[in-house]
């Protein structure tokens, strides 16, 4: 499946302003397999254990670099390199219309902490082509995952004018998300989503957020995708 979408996302995590950016859509599934529900915040994953209603396997996520010179709010805070987060996921469908999912990932590169995402979605087919889904979200992060983005050391404090702050890990955010999708025909599908997070703990208490940003983080996205078969004989 290939497609393109647009996401209106915060400039950086904790930012007050948002920016529209293109998002490519690409997924591969085994011949004969049908498309399955996927949440906007799910990492890229593959199920190595599949009981039908319970699936588990590796997951990965890319976190873009945060360049201090890209946004005035970050002046003096230094760059944070791009990170790749690798780990595992487990998801469970007690019934067709309800999914729970957990991901735990270890950061490499820009941060070396642990991130755990928890989500639940009620999936409601309104008519045969139109589906709505929505549910709560929660994220926990270790100190090593929080500190590079929300901590302010003495040097950064002097350079940025923000007070020094030692950001520790813990409950990172809580929120909710909703998604609608409409299948135009067997090949084309359009979708749209909104995800809201309220930063918690030291992420919310960071001077970067309290003085220059916002604890309320909203992402809006939409896109269109086209599914097709490729036969390799």
């Amino acid at each position: 499946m290939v497609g393109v979408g647009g996401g209106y996302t915060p400039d950086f995590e904790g930012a007050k302003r948002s920016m529209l950016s293109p998002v490519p859509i690409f997924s591969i599934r085994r011949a004969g397999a049908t498309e399955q529900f996927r949440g906007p915040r799910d990492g890229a994953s593959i199920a190595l254990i599949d009981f039908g209603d319970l699936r588990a396997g590796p997951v990965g996520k890319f976190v873009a670099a945060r360049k201090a010179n890209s946004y005035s709010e970050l002046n003096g805070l230094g760059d944070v390199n791009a990170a790749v987060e690798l780990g595992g996921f487990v998801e469970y469908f007690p019934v067709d219309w309800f999914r729970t999912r957990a991901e735990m990932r270890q950061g490499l590169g820009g941060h070396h902490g642990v991130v755990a995402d928890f989500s639940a979605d009620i999936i409601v087919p309104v008519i045969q082509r139109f589906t709505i889904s929505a549910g709560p979200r929660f994220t926990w992060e270790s100190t090593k995952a929080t500190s590079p983005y929300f901590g302010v050391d003495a040097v950064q404090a002097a350079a940025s004018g923000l007070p020094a702050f030692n950001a520790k890990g813990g409950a990172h955010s809580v929120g909710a998300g909703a998604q609608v999708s409409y299948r135009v025909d067997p090949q084309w599908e359009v979708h749209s989503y909104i995800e809201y997070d309220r930063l918690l703990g030291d992420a919310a208490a960071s001077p970067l957020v309290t003085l220059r940003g916002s604890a309320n983080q909203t992402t809006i996205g939409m896109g269109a995708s086209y599914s097709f078969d490729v036969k390799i004989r």
Partner: protein
Amino acid sequence: MRTPRVSLATVLVAVSVSACAMFETRETKLQAVKTVGIISAVGDEITFATGGLTGLNNRSQSFPIGSWGLDDLIVQQATAALNGRFQVQPVTYERDAFATVEKDSIVTPVNVIRGDPFKKLVQTQVSPQGLDAYIVITKAKSNFGGGSRKVEGIGFLTYGTVLESYNQVHALYEIRVFDGKTFDVIEKMTAPPLDDVGVVRLAGPSRTIDESFTPSAGNPAQNEKLHAAITDLVARSLSTTLSDMHLADVR
């Protein structure tokens, strides 16, 4: 600076040659096949499943439909489709053994690295041995809805939405061609969806049906309308699939 170019070209040539070699091997093997036996183990039971907006209990129910003679029909139709190219010979086999073999491990990489689950059955349960190839037609699985639940073989699916619900029948099967001497799989294909695909996208032949097909209380095997709908699905999809596998010349 030239070395990487040479290496890349060498790799591309090697990949191209090996791809051609694989293709030729399969085609060559099929061209050498004269006598075939056909095994079908698809139609022992029909499963009733619910999807979409369901109650909390969405367990499937299965009923025997051996009296419909679907497997005999499949063998007859496949024989008619293949007779122009191959000499089809009758074979005897333990149908239940083929129908109940566990094809998929819950640990998905195991499915990739382990051998074909039907290989040993073709070697030990089919008589006579010594034909050039054996064509084995067995149940296939498909996910349905947004989740990971699967339906298999012959079935009746009721899919609920907020505004209405839909009924759909399916006949999901896959076809393997085994080499009669090495018992390696020469060719394998899952029957693809038909053009008039049902409401719920399944990875195989299915069609939407109206309420009149819904079996009332009692044995679904007695429902002639359901029987006719399933037979039609199998008949329309079988020749197409055999043709897609280059086993039958005409659709």
